[in-house]
């Protein structure tokens, strides 16, 4: 795969064209309005980071797909019921990683040494017993509920609504009025959220803003040059061409040309960013690879404010293992990846700009099943990472004796955590976005 050099050369040409102030100034006189917008979408040459300015704040969401077993992630080792109900898969007090003297009843899974380091450095907030009323145990439905922040699991994604509110300032959800099409332009230029993976999650789908999604940046581009190299030059001429000012473009033509040009520019940017070497060595595994890419994009000064990464296979119905085994391997990947990510961000000097939040669609039942696995359950812990978090164990573990048909009763509504992220970190109006006023959970320090 040595074709990247060619793309690099092409990208350089593009940057020469649009990146210099002089050309911009003269071009502004003649270029149609939509081309100027594309040019402005490039990051400013100086990087332009101003820590503390809300526009510079970044949120990274890590989705643990399949229903992570919260009870073996943060194990309630001080509770007899835990040991009694999970004889084949429990974490013993000797194996668990202790956290906090005031919370000696819990301990991290032994594979989570990465999280322990983050915890010791004041970069981790743990919220326990997070869920929602009338829990749904279908993967699809419960994932939709988490992603829409609506217990019916319908409507736009919660971060999509955040973007909609930021860019266009209209009411969110199904009842929201779409922005006046054709006429009114969005109030602010926003940089769409980036999701690593073939499909963008519902959480990022808004009405006006659509996420960029790719498994690897190499797939976020036109594949025609691999069909035959001679197609590349004419492609450049046809897709990156400046439209004839006398051509009388229809609104749709102008829109399509602008978006195609934006796509080329952001493809160049992202691929150029990701070609760089990471500042630290990331461990193997898909999540580490995804976070490594995100770190490079942050380092390159992309103005994207929301990134989304996913780690799957948490649906451990059989043979999930205890201190070792399948679930342990997944947790190790998770903890080690986040540790490497923050080490990288610290080296970059960007850690203070990046809040990371992990969640799963549900936890698992308290009792193990007959196949040394666990079935779909309810409440589970959430983690928040970064120097801005109110570090430490934020609340008590939910009761293991007062269960709801064998499941934990949630003690924290996940939307109070979303409200904190939106309100206290992104400086957005969480009530407008979540369509209800939730008291932000105390997870972000005053800033």
């Amino acid at each position, binding site marked *: 795969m040595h074709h990247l050099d060619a793309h690099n050369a092409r990208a350089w040409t593009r940057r020469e064209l649009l990146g210099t102030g002089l050309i911009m100034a003269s071009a502004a006189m003649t270029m149609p309005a939509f081309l100027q917008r594309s040019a402005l979408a490039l990051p400013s040459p100086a990087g332009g980071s101003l820590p503390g300015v809300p526009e510079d704040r970044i949120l990274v969401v890590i989705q643990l797909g399949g229903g992570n077993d919260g009870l073996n992630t943060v194990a309630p080792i001080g509770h007899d019921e835990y040991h009694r109900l999970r004889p084949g898969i429990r974490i013993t007090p000797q194996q668990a990683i202790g956290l906090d003297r005031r919370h000696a009843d819990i301990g991290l899974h032994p594979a989570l040494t990465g999280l322990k380091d983050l915890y010791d450095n004041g970069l981790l907030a743990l919220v326990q017993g997070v869920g929602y009323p009338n829990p749904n145990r279908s993967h*699809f439905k419960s994932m*939709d509920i988490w992603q829409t922040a609506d217990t019916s699991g*319908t*409507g736009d994604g919660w971060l999509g609504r955040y973007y909609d509110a930021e860019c266009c300032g209209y009411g969110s959800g*199904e009842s929201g009025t*779409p922005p006046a*099409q*054709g*006429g009114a332009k969005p109030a602010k230029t926003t940089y*769409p959220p980036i999701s690593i993976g*073939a*499909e*963008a999650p519902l959480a990022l*789908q808004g*009405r006006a803003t*659509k*996420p*960029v*999604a*790719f498994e690897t940046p190499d*797939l*976020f*581009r*036109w*594949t*025609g040059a*691999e*069909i*035959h190299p*001679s*197609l590349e030059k*004419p*492609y450049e*001429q*046809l*897709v990156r*061409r400046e439209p*004839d000012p*006398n*051509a*009388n473009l*229809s*609104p*749709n*033509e102008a*829109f*399509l*040309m602008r*978006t*195609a040009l*934006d*796509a080329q520019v*952001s*493809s160049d940017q992202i691929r150029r960013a990701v070609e760089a070497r990471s500042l630290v060595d990331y461990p193997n595994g898909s999540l580490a690879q995804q976070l490594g890419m995100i770190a490079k994009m942050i380092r390159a000064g992309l103005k994207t404010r929301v990134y989304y990464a996913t780690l799957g296979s948490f649906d451990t119905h059989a043979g999930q293992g205890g201190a070792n085994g399948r679930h342990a391997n997944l947790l190790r990947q998770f903890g080690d990846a986040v540790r490497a990510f923050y080490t990288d961000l610290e080296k970059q000097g960007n850690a203070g700009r990046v809040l990371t939040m992990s969640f799963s669609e549900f936890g698992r039942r308290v009792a193990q*099943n*007959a196949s040394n696995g666990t*079935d779909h359950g309810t409440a589970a812990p959430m983690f928040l990472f970064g120097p801005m978090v109110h570090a430490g164990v934020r609340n008590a573990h939910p009761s293991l004796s007062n269960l709801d048909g064998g499941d934990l009763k949630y003690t924290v509504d996940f939307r109070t955590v979303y409200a904190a992220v939106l309100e206290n970190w992104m400086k957005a109006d969480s009530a407008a976005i979540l369509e209800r006023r939730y008291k932000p959970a105390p997870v972000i320090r005053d800033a």
Partner: protein
Amino acid sequence: MQTATHTPADETDTLTASLDRIPDREFGYEQARHLLWRAGFGGTPGQIDTLASWGPEKAVDHLLEVEKVPYEQPAADRFDKDIMRPPTQAERLEARAARRRRDEDALARIRLLRQQRQRQDRRQMAEIQRWWLQRLIESPRPLEEKMTLFWHGHFATSYRTIENSYHMYQQNQLFRRHAVGSYKALLYAIIRDPAMLAYLDNNDSRVGKPNENLARELMELFSLGVGNYTEKDIKEGARALTGYTFEDDEFFFNPDNHDKGSKQILGVRGNLDGEDFVAAILQQKACARFIAGKLYDFFALHPGSFEHDDAPAVTRVKARLAGLLRKSDYNVRPVLRKLLLSRHFYHPKVINNRIKSPAELVVGAVRSLNTPVRDMGVLLQAMELMGQSLFFPPSVKGWDGGRSWINTSTVFIRQNLMNFLLTGRLPVGYDSSAKKEKYDPSGLLEPLTSTDPAAARDPERVADYLLRFTLGKPDGQARAVLAEFANEHGGTVKPDTVTGMLLLIAAMPEYQLC
């Protein structure tokens, strides 16, 4: 004869609101091509020529009178209806006994069986998706399938929520049965459709505890539009719909759950049921306005694709179509006929000014360019990535359409999908079909080759011909680039060169329009 050639001057003309019939002499290649795209999924050069030679009336009637074109209608037993059947009496008793005994093993067995059935049903849903995409591609009645797609987006119901593939299939048949027929019949049928009743939670709606979901959407999204009813109409409408449920695959009216009290909906008072509710809706002038408006958005100009100055013309056309819909007692066909034959429809500001939906892009590429289908799975996945998964609309609002299809991600997916159809190129590597199914573009050039063999060897003229066919208009800059590409490949226009030219055209932003 073609007098309506596209020139920049046309675009500055004000959009006409005339619904007068387009004269025969103004109906040529460009108009026939436009008709084929909007009332179907595009056509080959040969099909365009045929329709152009027929003239507007015959061409439109051929597309509209779908039942005159022989085509097998889908059989009810085409798919297995029993995968998600309700549990039998014996199964229910067994489950209840197991729960009472707290027999974890038996309960686990029952859960496992249910999970197996759900998996099997998801597989069947994928088969039904393939089946419909195949039909969209093959049908000799393109307008029938296009209107089926229209109703699917209008009465949007998602498998993701109802998890019953056979009900989705049944609903698809309902839409096809009424494709160009009566909206009125469809509205009466939709409140008895198992998929819809499950999707909008009406199956548990009963007296004393009415669920308002169906009543609300029935007015807001399916018939009247926001602002044409009150919250009280929703509450009373929900009462009228209590007891409307289904058993297995059939509608079932449960009189015990129905609210028999007096209600007042949209000014009509009485002991109203669901049918009375629908009748009250159909009495409203707003209903024909709303439906005619949606048909117009779908076939002519989507909101946001015209300039402010042209808005009055659009409003006038919509109002007249609404009047026609009322006069025809909600029959869709005369309304479409009027629109598809009108001067307004063939105005340069309407032609090539619709952003192709993913279905139009995929189906249209295969139908017009005659590419191999290669791999249904890849096509369906690409459609999902482009934002339109058949039977999985994102919400009860359906697909927003228009510019919402296009963003920086979908631009590349759209371009690469075309690369796939034309060459078998996947994002990484090639599909197994690439070797055995090579795309042969020579058929496309047939009309040119047969009339003017010299032209078919001239890169500039081939480029012009292809641009006119694919983008609907000439483009001097693009012609020069394409001709240069052909010249670099020896100057003679070989099939591979034509494929290369098509790859380039399909990557152009303008290719997303129809």
